[in-house]
Each structure stands twice: as C-alpha cells, then as structure tokens.
C-alpha cells in the first residue's frame, strides 16, 4: 500500500473515472475512494489515514482533516473570511484546486504522487499472465489488460506459461521445444500471478491442457483461469468450465469482457489474505449503482471502481503501521510459490 487519495464528496458519482481513467484518456492509477454519504468524522480519524485527500469543500467538514490535503472547491478558489469555513489559512493543505477539476490539476496531482511518495510504490497491482500463440491477439489482450491497470506478462504457448509459473513441464505427450531452457522453479518464487487468461486453440498444448495442468497442481490450482476462443462450441465451453475455468470469452475479447476479470482476482486475493468476513461489508455506494443507467461499459467501470473501494476498505481498516510493515515484508508474495519442486 503506497499512496491513498481519498475523494470525499457528496456526489460520489462525479469522481468516477478520475482515479483510474481521467480526461484525455490518460491513465492514472491512484487509488481513489469516493463515499456517499461521507463517513462519520470520528471514523475518518480512527480508521482512515491518507496522504492525500480530494475534498469538495462545499460539502463541508473538510477542515477536520489535518493531513496533506488537496481541496477541490466549487465554485473556484476560496478566499473565505469566515473562520469556520475551510481556507488555505485554517487547514493544513497543500493546494486548493478548483472544480470541475481540469487536466492541468490532474497533472499536478500526478506530480505530487510521483514526487512526494515515489511512483514505484504503487498500489499492489493484479498481475495477469496472458497466453496466446497469435502475436496480434497477444498485443490486443496486453493492451486491454493494461488499460484496466493490470500488470501483464504475455507468453506464446502453454508450456512457456507453465515455465513462467515455475511448473516444470515433464509430461512427454506435449510438444516442447528442446531449445527452451528449463527454468528452475526457484527463479520464479517472487512472481505472483493473480489470473491466467489463455487462448483455447494453440498448437501443442491447448488452453484446455494448460487449464488442466494448473488445476492439477497443488501450488497453482488457486489461480483463476479464463479461456478465450474464437469458436462458440458449447461442449468446449462446458468442458472448460467443468475443469475449473472461471470464464469463457469469445474472441475477439473486448473491454467489457476484461471488466469481468476483477471479481475473480478479488476472490482469490481476499481468500489469501484471510479477509473473507469483510467481503460482506455493506458498501455505501450500492445505492448509487442501481441508479446508474448509463452504458454497459460505464456500469462495468463502476463495478470495478467498487471492487477497488472494497479492497481499500479492507486494506485501510488496518492501521497505517501494519500496512507499512506489510509493504516491506516479503510475506506479500504468496507462499504458494515456494516449494514448487513438489508439484506435478
């Protein structure tokens, strides 16, 4: 957990898109939470810490914050003489930024993040391993996933995928390029893969074969697998789902499909982190969700956003200190990748 930008506003909807995808299509990976209605002030102090807050001063109460703060004010800049109203003088804030927030202010926020906190320590990202023998499709899936802020590794075959995962491919029924160096599983201990998305139809090991290998492996079986295929063959689809695939996407894969991935990763992540009980927390934004009648894509983004929030609610209910410890602790890498020699 690195930086946290808390967006608090009476109209939470207005924040959608700012954290992940903002004006001009520039990608931003700020973790951002919008709440509606805002949490109680004592809760803010006790349970939430932040390096940065985005706050609409019109909604009031922002001067309770004493953190590095960015204020979003509407109408633009405050020169309030009323001492009960927040202003540059009576709160400890970095900048007052006008609302609606223009691209130039977003750049300023970027600079703030990059400079003050170091971009390297970004929010723990989901890492997706994409497997496809077609270069065009690898490009496409890579771009689709990166647009959704995932970290992506692409490989062109099932055996390379297993190699990357540190699973030695000893099965002789499958064609393996003898030139491919056999990578020691130890080299991959630090690699965390949160999801595998694979093409079905590939020469040598098919996506189905790969799925089976993964589900048979004690160390890899918890990684969600999604199969993609250009052919809509019902028996194929049900075979994959029965074998444990989470989803079956028809190719070409689209943004709307990629948006379905996050819940599968969240499931595994939270299971790993033993946070199941918090999954059922009521999200204050649920109401807003139902009101949203915009396009399917927008809804999907909204859901993603929610997932992100949920994750943050979980993460932030721990104290800052704990999080910092986690950040530096090697325990963040899932233990399942150690001792890979015992598998197959």
């Amino acid at each position, binding site marked *: 957990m690195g930086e946290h930008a808390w967006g608090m506003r009476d109209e939470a909807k207005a924040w959608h898109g700012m954290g992940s995808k903002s004006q001009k299509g520039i990608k931003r990976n700020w973790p951002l939470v919008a709440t509606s209605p805002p949490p109680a002030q004592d809760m803010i102090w006790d349970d939430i810490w932040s390096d940065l807050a985005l706050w609409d001063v019109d909604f009031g109460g922002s001067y309770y914050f004493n953190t590095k703060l960015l204020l979003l004010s509407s109408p633009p800049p405050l020169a309030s003489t009323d001492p009960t109203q927040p202003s540059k003088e009576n709160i400890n804030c970095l900048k007052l930024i006008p609302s609606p927030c223009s691209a130039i202010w977003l750049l300023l926020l970027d600079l703030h993040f990059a400079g003050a906190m170091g971009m390297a320590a970004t929010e723990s990202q989901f890492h997706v391993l994409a497997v496809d023998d077609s270069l065009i*499709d690898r490009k496409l899936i890579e771009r689709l996933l990166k647009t959704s802020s995932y970290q992506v590794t692409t490989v062109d075959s099932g055996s390379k995928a297993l190699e990357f995962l540190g699973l030695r491919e000893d099965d002789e029924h499958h064609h393996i390029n003898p030139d491919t160096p056999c990578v020691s599983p130890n080299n991959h201990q630090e690699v965390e893969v949160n999801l595998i998305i694979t093409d079905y139809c590939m020469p040598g090991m098919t996506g189905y074969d790969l799925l089976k290998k993964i589900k048979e492996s004690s160390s890899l079986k918890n990684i969600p697998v999604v199969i993609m295929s*250009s052919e809509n063959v019902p028996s194929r689809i049900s075979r994959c789902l029965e074998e444990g695939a989470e989803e079956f996407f028809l190719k070409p894969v689209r943004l709307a499909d990629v948006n379905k991935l996050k819940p599968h990763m969240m499931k595994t992540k939270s299971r790993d982190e033993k946070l199941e009980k918090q999954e059922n927390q009521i999200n204050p934004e649920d109401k807003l969700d139902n009101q949203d009648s915009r396009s399917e894509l927008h809804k999907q983004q909204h859901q993603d956003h929610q997932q992100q929030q949920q994750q943050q609610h979980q993460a932030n209910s721990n104290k800052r200190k704990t999080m910092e410890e986690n950040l530096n602790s090697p325990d963040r890498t899932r233990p399942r990748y150690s001792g890979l020699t015992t598998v197959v």
Partner: protein
Amino acid sequence: MDVGQMRRQWVEYTKSLFMEGFLDSQFEQLQQLQDESNPDFVVEVVSLFFEDSERLLNDLTRALDQPSVDFKLVDSYVHQLKGSSSSIGASRVKNACIAFRNFCEEQNVEGCRRCLQQVKQENLLVKNKLETLFRMEQQIVAAGGSIPNMEQIGF
C-alpha cells in the same frame, strides 16, 4: 484544406468503411485502446495483421497448388486468418474466411481456390482503405489537429 475540414473528411471516410462492411465494431475497440501512452496502437496492430495475412495467403496459395491438397493444413491457415481478421475488425476478410472454411470441410478444391481469390481481394481492398485512413490521420496530426473520437461523434 483546414484541419476542421480534414477531420470532417476523416469522419465521413471512417463511417463509409463501417457502412460498407470493411470494418466492424472490433475496429472501434482498437481505436478505444489507443491513447497518449500508445499513440500508434491501431497502426501497429493493423500492420501486424497485414504482415500476418500476407504470409498466410502465400502459404495458402502454395498449399492449394499441391497435387493433393492437405485440407487440414489449409483449414488451419484459414482459421488463423479468420482469427486475426476478426481481432482487427476486418469483417469482409473474416466473412470470406468463414466461407472458405466450409469448402475446406467439404474438401472442395475448386471452392477453396475461389475463396482464396476472394480473401486475397478483400484483404487488398481493406489494406488500401486503411492506408488511406491512416494517411488522413497523419495529415490531420501534421496540421496540428487531433483525430476525432468516434465515440464522441456518436457513431
């Protein structure tokens, strides 16, 4: 010609490519995936496609010239071409591939050869169309303009 006019022309031309079925909504997906961090994404992927299709069309020509045609091999080439054409939204190439695969299944050499000609023709057509489109984009950018967003213009 001013930038506004160039942009309008680009919009009209793009619309015509969709209307005439050269492109489908998958091409719009590619356009959506292009942004400041990847300003040449569409051109890159489309170029990859044409490299790929040229290779496959050569392979197909060779395979169908054999005295005894290996239909399984032909079908695997057509399958690849169908996949990559649908990935970039070249729908007329994709449709020609679908018909092609039916003749493969029937093991109909004549049908396959006719289809190969058709796929070649569609491939060339969409290649020319996209080259024209990309040239228009270069001119807009060179004149200091930006490429219109198809979503914004309600297409």
